């Protein structure tokens, strides 16, 4: 019983982590950017969906789509207003651009977060769920919503996989992550690739945010922790390695669930962090890191 509970709950939460982290690592792998406004974008998407579905009466489906749309817009804004400007800036020396992008995206994230708190206050909000009710799996009464979340996460990840491995645009993205110059020399416009990646990223983050909003609920406070968890998962899995982050997401997800069930909900986050620290010391590249 307990075993199944842990198995099922861990699976759902991990799927959510995985989706969140995938976009984050994709962006890093292809554009080399660690986007610290990640959490804020997720929250923005969720809150947008909440407002659209509830306050403006668009209903759950349109609301969710609206939320994802907001995610994409914000992600593109992040690229055009901040990342691109910094990458092209001549005033900043190359080796310093990293810290500048990190600082700038952090500030940008705070702005988004504050804007949300200002417009919608910072109480937790839960997005109108698309599916309700519960089903019983292996004797575990599970919210349909939870299963729905896991499914959508995996659909999204699967879609990403197809995009990257089966479409030409996707291949270009993959190639760009390995060797941008090579891509240019083959007549593919890097700038186009980057825009595509940021759009895809926005969609992933948006979906993750909206699902989180339906499953657990979000508040503007969640932005920081969300970025942090994506960050740690991605590093655990190895920066830039999508499969790595998927594995890492499940390791972290189950570690947390196990701790919450077997030890105490209060210590939930700690084992994962310890593991992360250990990895940082023993194998800084992360589990599947290539760089």
């Amino acid at each position, binding site marked *: 019983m307990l075993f199944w509970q842990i198995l099922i709950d861990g699976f759902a939460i991990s799927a959510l982590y995985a989706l969140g982290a995938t976009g984050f690592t994709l962006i890093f792998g292809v554009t080399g950017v660690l986007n610290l406004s990640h959490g804020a974008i997720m929250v923005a998407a969720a809150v947008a969906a909440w407002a659209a579905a509830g306050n403006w009466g668009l209903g759950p489906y349109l609301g969710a789509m609206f939320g994802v749309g907001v995610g994409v817009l914000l992600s593109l804004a992040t690229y055009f207003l901040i990342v691109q400007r910094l990458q092209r800036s001549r005033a900043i020396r190359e080796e310093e651009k990293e810290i*500048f992008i990190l600082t700038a995206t952090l500030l940008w994230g705070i702005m988004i977060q504050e804007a949300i708190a200002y417009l919608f206050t910072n109480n937790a909000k839960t997005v109108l769920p698309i599916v309700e009710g519960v089903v019983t799996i292996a004797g575990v009464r599970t919210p349909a919503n939870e299963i729905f979340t896991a499914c959508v996460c995996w659909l999204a990840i699967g879609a990403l996989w197809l995009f990257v491995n089966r479409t030409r645009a996707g291949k270009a993205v993959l190639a760009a992550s390995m060797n941008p110059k090579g891509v240019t020399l083959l007549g593919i416009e890097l700038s186009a690739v980057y825009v595509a990646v940021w759009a895809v990223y926005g969609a992933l983050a948006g979906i993750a945010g909206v699902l989180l909003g339906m499953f657990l609920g979000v508040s503007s406070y969640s932005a920081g922790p969300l970025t*942090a968890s994506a960050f740690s998962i991605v590093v655990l899995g190895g920066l830039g390695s999508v499969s790595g982050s998927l594995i890492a997401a499940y390791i972290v997800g189950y570690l947390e669930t196990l701790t919450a069930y077997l030890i105490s909900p209060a210590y939930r986050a700690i084992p994962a*962090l310890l593991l*992360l*620290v250990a990895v940082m*010391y023993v194998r*800084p590249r992360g589990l599947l890191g290539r760089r």
Partner: protein
Amino acid sequence: MLARILKSPPVWISLIVVAVASTLPLYVSGYVLGLLTIAYYFGVFSMAWDLLFGFANEVNFGPTFLIGLGAYTAGILDSLYQPPIILCIAAGVAASVTGGVVLALPALRVRGPYFGLTTLVAVLMLQNFVVVAAELTGGEIGLTVPDVISINDRTNYWIALGFMTVSGAILYGLSRSPVGLILQASGQDAVQAAALGFNVTKHKLAAFIVSAFFSGLAGALMVFYLGAASVGTFIDVTVGVQVIVGAVLGGRRTILGAAIGAVFLIAMGEALRPLGDLSTFIVSAIALFVVLVFPGGLLGMLKGAREAT
């Protein structure tokens, strides 16, 4: 060389500024003083961070790890045994210096984002520890410290100002001294520095220790000013962001700029308080604007202006 340091504009300008600042209590309200007191401590945080980033070229996302260690160690010691405050502060400093060494270990092995990450994780760890060890640290509740250095606005203000001035002088002096030169060389290109016979590891480690020393000291002093320590004040990542933004805003690799930036941030935040929730938004917006448009930071802008004329 000393003569040159004294001649350099940033130094005598800041000397004048300090002189003026020290007279503020005579004609400024206690509230503004209280505000500046905090700002000055943040100034030290930012300067200590800039020593690591600007000179050792180590991007430390966990300044609050060092600050928090100092602050909480001092605070907890006081709330448990009430020894003389000076002892608590010493203990705080010791703790954060140890933390600095711990932080340095990975820094000397891993590069780039990985190190930045380790530091971030360090903060999360500390934060979780504080929450979990609630009975010791006050957890989410925050720790109320029985003693304060003084409840007199002016005294507190002068302590903070003096502390910032001294730290600034030392850090700036270091950055301009021969060791500072070596540190920069090590940060910029370890191979070349080693080829000149410098033990890069040794110098970077030293930088971490110095940075930790001042972070911890400032943290401990601030606890005994506020009379309370909470995760939200000393450890939370957003605090670290404020420290970093302060340094970048003021002009990285300048030490003094860091202090200016930090004070500016706090002052802005307060000046905009009437806007309520929007104040943070606007402060971040301004900071972002500076980062995007004047990467040199406030000092950079001034320099630019001077060279332009």
